[in-house]
């Protein structure tokens, strides 16, 4: 969703060997898009989409149909990418139902997850809108 301008700060993105092998099979557009999203996450950790259950502590970063499982180093802007995989066919259609079903369980950890996703959405919107404002300011005649 966000087409935020990539921050100027340099960050390190580490890939596990297997994640990197799959990353190299992605199209150039997907690779560039994923790196941009990973960098945004490194600089703005609030953009992270936390995972749950046995993957608690990890985050999901998506670009198009590609998804990564990542974890971040809280001290330095370093992101470790563990898995890169394409979204399964039909997964997007089932996602809404899955989320609604989970929320109905009244599990506090699911409630916390929902709040984290709302926060990530708001951060993403804020980042995208600040990027648009900056672009307009750059394009405005002096």
């Amino acid at each position, binding site marked *: *969703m966000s087409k935020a301008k*990539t921050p100027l700060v*340099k*960050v*390190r*993105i*580490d*890939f*596990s*060997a*297997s*994640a*990197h092998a799959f990353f190299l099979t992605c199209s150039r557009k997907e690779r560039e898009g994923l*790196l*941009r999203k*990973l*960098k945004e996450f490194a600089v703005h950790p609030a953009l992270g*989409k*936390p*995972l*749950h*259950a*046995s*993957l*608690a502590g*990890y985050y*999901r970063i*998506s670009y198009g149909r590609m*998804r990564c*499982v990542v974890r971040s180093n809280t001290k330095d802007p370093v992101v*470790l990418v*563990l*898995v890169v*995989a394409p*979204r*399964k066919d039909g*997964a*997007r259609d*089932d*996602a*809404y*139902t*899955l*989320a*609604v079903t*989970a929320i109905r369980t009244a599990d506090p950890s699911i409630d916390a*997850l*929902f709040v984290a*996703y*709302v926060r*990530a*959405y708001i951060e993403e919107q804020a980042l995208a809108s600040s990027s648009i404002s900056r672009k307009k300011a750059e394009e405005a005649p002096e």
Partner: protein
Amino acid sequence: MALFLSDVLSAKEARAHFATLLDDAEQGRSHVIVRHSRIAAGIVSPEQAKLLPMLEAVLHDMGESLAMATDPAIVAAVRSAEEEVALGHIVSYEV
């Protein structure tokens, strides 16, 4: 303000009082319109309408993550990748 406080009306009632429903919506009161015992539509305030795309995006996003975290292939791949990382099998990019 009760953000999602709604009155339920039949389609016939909604048609008869449409102007009132719009006034209510502008003041933050939403209405659900039922046709043949099923929810057919809702009339909500602009503020509430703005929240709907967010709610849809958040639920889709969260559902994708829930699916991913319960996918045995993904979980196994993460465990295996952690072993690779522990052995130092990492490729780094500086971007």
